């Protein structure tokens, strides 16, 4: 069983919702990224999403774009990102790590080489933002064979037939994009979320994570009521932008933000277990 599958099974038994923070690798430095990852685990992360910096992050808003530019300014490459995961694994062999990024750096390394090196480094999943269901049959099986779960996106615009096609090539979990837009934009419409996730539940037993627009502990709790995982990105990355190279302060701020979300999610999970309506 993959580390992701194992972690989600554990959480399910405990009736808990996963909290998955996102960081752009190498922002502001490789050392800081590894330190942030450990701190986020202490603060309650169940898995970590690590963004692979790219010059042209088409699906990302200004916060993640700026993070990519900061990481690329000192030449952070996909190889460097894998090295960060390797370093993280020296002290943490349990927390799943999912890389999130665009296809070109992976394609440039070579898909098979990427799968092999990622697995060796301790990467558990890869979410390739621009890998559509149309192209996935050429890509996803190579990752699976290497032992890397292809995590796939589903959007509010995805029809039921497509949902089934996407799930065919997905493993680890499904990443549901909570609204039409780029990362970090607007806010959640949590009322509609449950209805939107229902057809995904019909199509797959994979856990469903929800991201894009989770900014506050209240957002996180609301998402936890309907999803298996809450993914938070821009809210954390904007703090790295603010505190930058002051790693101690940034670590503290990231931990505080994530802890507050953790607490809100745990309360929501407890209420759910007690059978109260949320």
């Amino acid at each position, binding site marked *: 069983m993959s580390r992701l599958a194992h972690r989600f099974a554990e959480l399910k038994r405990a009736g808990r919702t996963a909290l998955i923070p996102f960081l752009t690798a190498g922002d502001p430095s490789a050392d800081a990224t590894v330190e942030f990852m450990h701190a986020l685990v202490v603060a309650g992360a169940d898995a970590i999403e690590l963004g692979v910096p*790219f*010059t*042209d*992050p*088409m*699906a*990302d*808003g*200004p916060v993640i*774009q700026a993070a990519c*530019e900061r990481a*690329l300014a000192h030449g952070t*490459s*996909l*190889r460097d990102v894998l090295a960060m995961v390797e370093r993280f694994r020296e002290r943490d062999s349990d927390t799943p790590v999912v890389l999130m990024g*665009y*296809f*070109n*750096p*992976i*394609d*440039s*390394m070579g898909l098979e080489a990427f799968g092999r090196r990622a697995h060796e480094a301790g990467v558990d999943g890869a979410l390739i*933002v*621009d*890998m*559509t*269901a*149309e*192209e996935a049959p050429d890509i996803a099986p190579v990752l699976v064979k290497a032992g890397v779960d292809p995590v*796939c*996106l*589903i*959007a*509010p*615009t*995805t*029809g039921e037939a*497509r949902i089934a096609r*996407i799930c065919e090539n997905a493993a680890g979990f499904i990443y549901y*994009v909570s609204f*039409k*837009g*780029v990362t970090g*934009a607007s806010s959640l419409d949590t009322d509609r979320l449950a209805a939107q996730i229902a057809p995904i539940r019909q199509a797959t037993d994979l856990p469903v994570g929800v991201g894009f627009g989770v900014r506050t502990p209240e957002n996180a709790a609301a998402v936890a009521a309907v999803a298996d995982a809450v993914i938070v990105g821009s809210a954390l990355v904007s703090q790295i932008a603010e505190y930058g190279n002051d790693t101690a302060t940034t670590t503290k701020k990231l931990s505080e933000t994530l802890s507050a979300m953790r607490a809100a999610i745990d309360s929501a999970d407890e209420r759910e277990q007690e059978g109260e309506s949320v």
Partner: protein
Amino acid sequence: MSTTISKDPAISAARGPHAWRNMPDARGHFGPYGGKFVAETLMAPLDELAQAYAEALRDPEFIATLDADLADYVGRPTPIYYAERLSNKIGGARIWFKREDLNHTGAHKVNNTIGQALLAARMGKTRIIAETGAGQHGVATATVAARLGLSCVVYMGSEDMRRQATNVYRMRLLGAEVRPVESGSKTLKDAMNEALRDWVANVDDTFYIIGTVAGPAPYPAMVRDFQAVIGREARRQMLERTGRLPDALVACVGGGSNAIGLFYPFLDDEDVAIYGVEAGGDGIASGRHAAPLSAGRSGVLHGNRTYLMQDDNGQIQGTHSISAGLDYPGVGPEHSWLKDIGRARYVDVTDAEALDAFHECTRIEGIMPALESAHAVAYARKLAAEMGPGTDILLNMSGRGDKDMASVAEAAGETL
């Protein structure tokens, strides 16, 4: 004169007759290139677009409206012109210009924006977005949006806005909002990123008019189809004027829409050699250029697989060209395929050569080419000398140079 590959019997047999115009396949692939690489949110609108486009092509009324607009609004057919003094000066092949510079708005771009805007209106979309480099596509989009009463937002790199201030003003006069793009290299590729982000957030009412034969399927084929009017007319006109097909075609290639528009109807005429001219900037060896087919390798950007300028880690590299319209690190996937199979050859011309051709064409023909088109003129001069008398080169004069006065003056050390 003929392409070398067309005479290779093994390749001809494997390919069968008339296979070159059958691309792309059902998945939008041109051989290994093209396809759909976008965030999932865009897949539904892309499917909707592909379906609406296929329906429109089967609708005689849509085709009639498009043809009428191309005739009455754009001014088609554009003539072919024998550049006699330029040809005589070289003393080689006869050089013919397909006069896309005579189109309404001054370039070939409007052929495509008319088609896509009519499609947008047919689909009930009320808002148009576009990216632009030199500003020609932005102007052509703002123009048709004004005519059809659609709201229009054009994304343009702030560096390009500086280089093409007149076109920015034209777009604003036409009622478009021009949004400066400050991210990345502040040029065409970043404008395209920003337009894609806008589209993701506004898919319900917005139609994205991509200006070149790149982007996710169905754009490369759709834009090609709208631009192929260039080659269809030119093929007929050359037969009328000279009684035969030209020996070679020459067009500049940035994203490659004017080039594919000229090339496509000739693809199965195996004796017609095809040359695409990329922006060599300061020279390929300098690294400061915009010539992915000459110096790049396969990768994925802006929704399709194609030749890209990228570093060893798959990061997209900055480009340089004196011509904003060619300043793009990728190229339409069909060009990548035509290069690999050898049906077209891709060459490059430096900034200095393009400027020299600009001045010569202006002085001896009284036709001021866009700096993009001047790249084609520069290569046609070389090719004409090689090919010798009794042969014909058909060049796509894709746009007029009025927009480039500031760049030309700056290069000459003058201020306007």
